[in-house]
């Protein structure tokens, strides 16, 4: 039914468009000079017809099921009246199945009555939608049609509509962000009601296993998040030590030294690296790099865990090289050639020009490329799950196994969970703090850039 309504919207839109455009053309035929092209008259009229229909649909969608449910429940005979929410669900389901003819067996006569009420209510709701929609469209049409005239500014009006659509789209993105932040915030507050926030933020021990039975030993459930953030920071630092220099130097080579032909081949190849699924990097880290580091370490007489922060960090660094190099390459290319010419004209060499003129001018873009890479590193889960381990060690030794915030969130929420235990809720708290962690990094980076940037116009 709703899909039919969408078809109707399209049909109405086309009809209104055709009518508006032909009116516009008629004005031209009448010798008048139009303010807007006939096509805008059509678009204007179509918008006026479609908008009320969409509004009708938006209002109807949440209301209709409630109306149908209420009518169905009201039709149930007294002996079948549901005592609780579970029963109510069951009765409604049965009535719906009977109404659709999918009920196996013979239904209770009381349910059959409710099913009739269900079908009736549905039909009523659908008719109501049709009537509402068409009435809205007709009203819009009548209103718009009266306004059509040779000097009517259909173009400007339609552009207003376009602007509203654009605003709505950006609103979706912003509201989603706000919604996510708040939903995580409320779960976090529930967690802090069960577990003191200072123990969470400053506790040095992470062992989220809570006791299922009272007599279990060693399942105390301590949620000290410091080891997780230490692990995240450690792996991020290792990754940035790889990706920062390698990515930046690659970008400098690509934009300043490479011939156009080399660049045309090398840049897309480097970007393919960004398209490799992280899980592939993950098993590469776990099966190739970690054992390699272990054997090298043992040759040198070091004790290396088989899952080490170093392995995860190195592979993650390789993974984010393209983020750094590709974005930095773009911003370096955006530095005007006239600045380079000015520097060469002073007798500067190519590397002096890059160091003293090009890079300072490109600094804001390079820092945002690095920030994006850091955000990726902090949020990355798969590689760390496979290569860094689950042990919440509080250490800055890259040869030991560590765990990160994202890995723990994943571990806490995988499998069957009770959604009101401290263990599950702690995942939300971790997510919330992680969000602030990256937010703080971004703000700091913005400040740095604002202080040191050299702005070219």
């Amino acid at each position: 039914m709703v899909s039919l309504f969408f078809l109707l919207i399209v049909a109405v839109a086309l009809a209104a468009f055709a009518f508006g455009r032909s009116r516009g053309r008629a004005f031209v035929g009448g010798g008048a000079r139009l303010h807007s092209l006939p096509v805008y008259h059509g678009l204007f009229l179509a918008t006026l017809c479609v908008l009320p229909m969409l509004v009708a649909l938006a209002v109807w969608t949440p209301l209709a099921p409630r109306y149908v449910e209420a009518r169905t429940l009201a039709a149930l005979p007294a002996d079948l009246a549901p005592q609780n929410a579970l029963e109510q669900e069951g009765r409604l389901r049965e009535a719906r199945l009977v109404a659709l003819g999918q009920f196996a067996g013979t239904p209770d006569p009381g349910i059959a009555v409710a099913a009739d009420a269900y079908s009736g209510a549905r039909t009523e709701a659908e008719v109501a939608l049709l009537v509402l929609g068409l009435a809205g469209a007709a009203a819009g049409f009548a209103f718009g049609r009266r306004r059509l005239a040779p000097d009517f500014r259909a173009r400007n009006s339609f552009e207003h509509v376009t602007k509203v659509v654009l605003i709505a789209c950006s609103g979706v993105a912003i509201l989603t962000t706000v919604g996510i932040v708040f939903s995580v915030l409320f779960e976090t507050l529930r967690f802090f009601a069960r577990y003191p926030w200072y123990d969470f933020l400053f506790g040095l021990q992470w062992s989220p296993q809570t006791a299922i039975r009272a007599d279990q030993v060693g399942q105390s459930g301590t949620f000290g998040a410091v080891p997780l953030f230490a692990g995240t920071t450690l792996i991020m630092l290792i990754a940035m030590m790889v990706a920062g220099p390698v990515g930046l130097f690659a970008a400098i080579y690509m934009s300043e030294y490479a011939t156009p032909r080399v660049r045309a081949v090398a840049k897309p190849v480097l970007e393919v690296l960004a398209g490799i699924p992280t899980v592939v990097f993950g098993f590469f880290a776990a099966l190739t790099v970690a054992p390699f580091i272990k054997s090298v370490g043992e040759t040198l007489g070091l004790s290396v865990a088989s899952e080490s922060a170093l392995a995860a960090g190195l592979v993650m660094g390789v993974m984010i090289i393209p983020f750094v190099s590709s974005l930095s390459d773009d911003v370096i290319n955006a530095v005007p050639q006239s600045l380079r010419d000015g520097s060469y004209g002073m007798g500067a060499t190519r590397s002096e020009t890059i160091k003293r003129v090009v890079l300072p001018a490109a600094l804001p873009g390079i820092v945002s490329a690095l920030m994006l890479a850091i955000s990726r590193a902090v949020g990355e889960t798969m590689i760390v799950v496979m290569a860094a381990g689950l042990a919440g060690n509080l250490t800055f030794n890259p040869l030991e196994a560590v765990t990160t915030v994202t890995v723990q969130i994943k571990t806490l929420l995988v499998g069957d969970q009770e959604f009101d235990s401290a263990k599950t809720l702690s995942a939300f708290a971790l997510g919330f703090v992680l969000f602030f962690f990256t937010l703080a990094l971004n703000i700091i980076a913005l400040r740095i850039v604002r202080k040191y940037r050299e702005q070219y116009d």
Partner: protein
Amino acid sequence: MTTMPNIELAKATAAEAADEAVTKVVARDVNVYYGDKHALHDVSIDIPEKAVTAFIGPSGCGKSTFLRCINRMNDTIPICRVSGRIEIDGSDIYDRGLDPVQLRAKVGMVFQKPNPFPKSIYENVAYGPRIHGLTSSKADLDEVVTMSLKRAGLYEEVKDRLTSPGTGLSGGQQQRLCIARAIAVNPEVILMDEPCSALDPIATAKIEELIDELRENYTIVIVTHSMQQAARVSQRTAFFHLGKLVEEGSTEQIFTAPQDKRTQDYITGRFG
């Protein structure tokens, strides 16, 4: 005989002095190719020391291309190829043993659009002395910066805000900053590629005045689209057309008694 444009000419005495001057730059049979395009044909010219030489001609005639040969800026364009011989003080600047970086410290350049670095006014001027290690102390560097800004006629306007960004100056000030930047490394030749084309008339007048002052110490080569400007600031003028050097001589002679029909057509505004 067509009537000559009514333009103010540089002092004849200056032109005569220039004729007697020592030759600074000698070019013989210079050809430039951009890929398959033959941009400059057999240009031979003598450029006198401590005088202003103007290159005029319609757009795309090769005058800027030739200018960029004199400090080897064309080297930065991968598809560009130069043949022939250009000497400064008798030594070939396209010699294999010569480092173009050294050459450009000796032959400074000012560009069409003012291109100050996105640094402070001070740092803009200090850039050249720093990379060439011309000064040994902060005090030295301060002095070089002050001197250069004074010579470029900018010091009085910016002395209180040497640390503010050079990009914040007006167009004419930016161009004088670029001139200060160029003279800070103490070059012998300054090449100017249409230095006033992005400026308003008052800023242009200031730059022209400055060029006239700089002539005492530097050999200046200026490319310009404005024949009035060439007449005002230069002692010698060379007319380029379709990649060829058509005619070259004292500015007075070029503007009053051109030898070539094409030069005459150009300066009387028949084409261009």
